[in-house]
């Protein structure tokens, strides 16, 4: 098991954004996390990745208790993430952005960080010149950039928050291939996504969050047939 959460809770004021959520992610899995807007998916990722510690519950990474560890420590032990609302270094070039990941991302620095960064950009098929300033990119390009930066940290587990938002179906196919490739290189993935097509295509297992609670879990097929999920999330008339 690469990641396990046990009864994680996180509240904002009176709002229970994440309530008693327990997940198990196996090594090599692509694990999907879906749920209505405001269900607490991003918040859950944030508590796992150390942005804010959970109020209750535990998080284990490869059997090690990482509850409440700082984000950079968590990155160093092999967990990287992308953000739903992109975070980049706008005054640095694309290459420099990714180099931040390759230089600082792992405890032992890679010997040729620039080479590694360029490799990663090529791997995610970054469409523009590596000298472009990140501040000039649009959201979609920034998401690619974040992905490359996360991969440059040599992570074992990757948390993706809506990387596919705004893609055309054609682009979605490329992304599907890319995500499979990442997994085949030995990185497990947890992904939050609203595009059911992508989720159905790549995920081995899905959990559904609703009002902070996990209401269903299982293989993609099982999940979308679940009546609760249909009501709470997909809507009865949903077509893929």
């Amino acid at each position: 098991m690469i990641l396990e959460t046990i009864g994680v809770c996180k509240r904002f004021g009176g709002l229970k954004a994440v309530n008693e959520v327990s997940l198990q992610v196996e090594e090599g899995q692509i694990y999907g996390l879906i749920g209505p807007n405001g269900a607490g998916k991003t918040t859950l990722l944030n508590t796992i990745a150390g942005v804010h510690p959970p109020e209750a519950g535990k998080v284990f990474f490869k059997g090690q208790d990482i509850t409440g560890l700082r984000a950079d420590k968590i990155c160093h032990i092999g967990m990287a993430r992308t953000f739903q609302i992109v975070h980049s270094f706008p005054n640095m070039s694309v290459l420099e952005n990714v180099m931040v990941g390759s230089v600082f991302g792992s405890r032992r620095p890679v010997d040729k960080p620039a080479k590694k960064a360029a490799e990663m950009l090529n791997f995610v098929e970054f469409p523009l010149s590596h000298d472009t300033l990140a501040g000039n990119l649009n959201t979609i390009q920034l998401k690619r950039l974040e992905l490359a930066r996360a991969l440059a940290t040599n992570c074992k587990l990757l948390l993706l928050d809506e990387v596919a938002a705004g893609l055309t179906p054609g682009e979605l196919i490329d992304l599907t291939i890319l995500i499979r490739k990442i997994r085949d290189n030995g990185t497990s993935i947890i992904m939050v996504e609203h595009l059911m097509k992508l989720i159905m295509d790549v995920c081995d297992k899905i959990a559904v969050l609703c009002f902070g609670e996990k209401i269903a879990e299982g293989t993609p097929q099982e999940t979308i047939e679940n009546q609760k999920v249909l009501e709470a999330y997909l809507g009865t008339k949903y077509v893929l």
Partner: protein
Amino acid sequence: MEKAERGFRKGMRFLRKFGLTPFGMAMLFALAVFPLVIQDEVITRLLISALMLGALAMAFDFTAGFININNFGYAAFWGVGAYTSALLAVKLGVSPWLGMLAGGVFAGLLGLGLGFLTLRLAGIFASCMTWFVALAMFAVTANWVELTRGTSGLSVPPLFHTTENIGYYYTIFVMTILTYVGLRVIINSHIGTAFRAIGQDIQAAQASGINVTKYKIMNFTISCAIAGVLGGFYAHFVGIITPTVMNTSHTVEIMVLSYVGGRGTIWGGLVAGLIMIPGMEYLKGLLELRLLIYGVLMIMVMIFFPNGLAGLYNKFFNLLGESFFEKGQRVKKGGEERGGRAEMKN
């Protein structure tokens, strides 16, 4: 012949590591021989002030231009260095040279504390925190009369017992070079990348494995320690200090230099210092009109050249299709808009 050329290239590349470009070195050389050629105490004193404020502006930029926190209280750390060195000399008879070091250490320690205090803050909140801390430091200095003589000021023994200033000049000259080269070496290393990353997006920096606490505190400590050493120098140079050295107006003076010079360049502050300090002195006869001009100048610079001298310099050399300074030093165009916005909403 070819070998010599290769050797030369290699040498240049080596020097570049320390931020020394041909242009910069020419400037340094000019500064080094200046007082020998033109032996004028007035000009020498002016250059001492210019170098000292320029060095302060560079160390200020180390925080403001990289991790993007304007240390509004910067002058207070300068003042702390001045008082530490002065008190050691006055009360315990410690040599001024050791005192300056001690001033650096003490100011650095306080900077470390300041780093901790601003950890959770960003943007103008962080700046105000540094400001409030500095105001408190000022108030302590002004009110601890038994120790510091308060606002009445403290007389300090000089570094050199002559009315000539050349000794001070070379002291500050060496300090300025050390400051520049030291800061440049750090900025050119991975540590500099970490600073810039923190300055542009803390969350992303942290998620990419940067220990924000460590680097932020490191940055504050270094920047404040430099201020401390320079403060020690200042105390022994002027021979009298009062709590007003810690005034925000001094921070503003330093900040203006670093902004007029160009944010995030390190060298900009020094160049601005060398131009503006003598310039202001030249206008001294105009009394308040001089400050009026200063203010108007600031307004004009902000409206027409927000990238400062470095921006002009880059424009100029872009036109020539030449670049004497390294790429990393350039004031970047374009992307800053986003940076600006992000800073605003914090």
